[in-house]
């Protein structure tokens, strides 16, 4: 069963990425987490995302395409990256999600991957 671990981070977390004093431990935490998922044989895929100010939203409205640049609404936590893991059950997935650095600094969401009809 595949689950997606969505890692939400605060503005302070995103700021750690470029802070000379904090970048080391920040990246060490995330790469250790990813490597541990791989070594445990549960890692399927994943990616880190640039901060929300690098984002753009596309919509097709009555006037055709519109593009809105980020950052968007004032939300405390923004998606910072995700992992797809393959584990026997939801509880195991939650156990792995608890180990994501975002679980202690902000929050981590776990969602079962949708099985497309016919697959």
């Amino acid at each position, binding site marked *: 069963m595949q689950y997606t671990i969505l890692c939400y981070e605060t503005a302070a977390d995103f700021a750690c990425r470029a802070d000379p004093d904090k970048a*080391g431990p920040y990246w060490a935490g995330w790469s*250790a987490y990813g*490597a*541990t*998922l791989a070594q445990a044989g549960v890692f399927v895929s994943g990616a880190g995302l640039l901060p929300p100010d690098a984002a753009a939203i596309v919509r097709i409205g009555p006037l055709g395409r519109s593009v809105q640049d980020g950052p968007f609404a004032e939300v405390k936590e923004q998606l910072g990256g995700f992992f797809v893991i393959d584990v026997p059950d939801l*509880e*195991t997935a939650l156990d792995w999600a608890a180990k994501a650095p975002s679980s*202690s600094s902000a929050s981590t969401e776990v969602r079962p991957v949708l099985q497309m009809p016919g697959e």
Partner: protein
Amino acid sequence: MTSVATQTEQVARTSYARLLGLLAARTRDLASAEDALADAFRAALETWPRTGIPDRPEAWLMTVAKRNHGATRARTRTARDALPTLFLLHSDQAAPMPAFPDHRLALLFACTHPAIDAATQTPLMLQVVLGLSAERIAPAFLMTAAALGQRLSRAKARLKALNVAFDIPDPADITPRLPAVLEAIHAAAALGWETVPGSDPARTDLSSEALYLAEALIGLAAEDPEPKALLALILYSAARVPARKVTYIPLSEQDTTLWDKSLIARADQALTDAARANRLGRFQLMAAIQSVHAERARTGRTNWAALETLHAALNRLHPTVGGSVAAAAVTLECHGPTACLRALDSLPDTATYQPYWALRAEAMRRAGNPDTPAALSRALGLAEDPALRAWLAARLG
């Protein structure tokens, strides 16, 4: 002024087990007592911010919980299911509002009923007495939360089906059930210690709850040395709390002048009392190990040879994965990294056991192994405590 939510949480922490013990003692249905109590706390969170905290918050919660229990049961159809509520209403008339006698120990002993599978007893006790979720408890037993949750539900159904009374057992029944109760109290204390003080107040509270239960248990089983040894063990760990601060500091690097000497003295006394019975047990060995560490405050050095003997004895008497990893840590100090790694290699089921990888990384570092960062990274990837993670990340960097 602290918020109502914070105060409610405080009441929940200090009263949960006592209220549950009281409810379960009357209804003999653990699962529905837990549900009723959970609903009562939910009602408190909704009501108290408007009305303020009642003068007797426990009485308020108890009243709502009993009403909830009645409402839940009213929806069930069979007369059999309604029995606990009738029982409860009946005892209400007999004795109006109780003075909240302490049922926590009774609850613990009920969980050690022979009909409950031995491996389920400790987690069951942690859940009912400390209100911990299966997710919180499962990692401490190297189990998945799902498997544990199922076992706990089955156990509660079992107790209900057998109509087990939540009373303190007769003195003759206490001794055989003591090991399971000791283990649960110890597990509660250990869950509290794993957390750095200040980072999660709910967890440090577990240690004080465990301290209370250990002292109460000595009153109940005065002849047995192990409750005294458990008390010593909890006190030794409590003595070191001031040296841990907000960041993670390993035992060997702690400033011993910050250790609480009066708690160490109380622990020494409890361990000496335990030794008088002349019957060696698991908790006496564990407390003795901590007394050797505490000695460093006086002598300035750790007696590793004594620790090796005690760890070996403990692993013979009560082999566990955690105990084996702890013994391998002493091997590292006594015989160096190669012997330590050999000991670690022989352990089964350690793929996701964080302390195993932390020790493995340290042994590899001392051996000059170039693959050390990989093991350290695995220890970091498996760590959940932010303070511990920060400490490991600093070593990796």
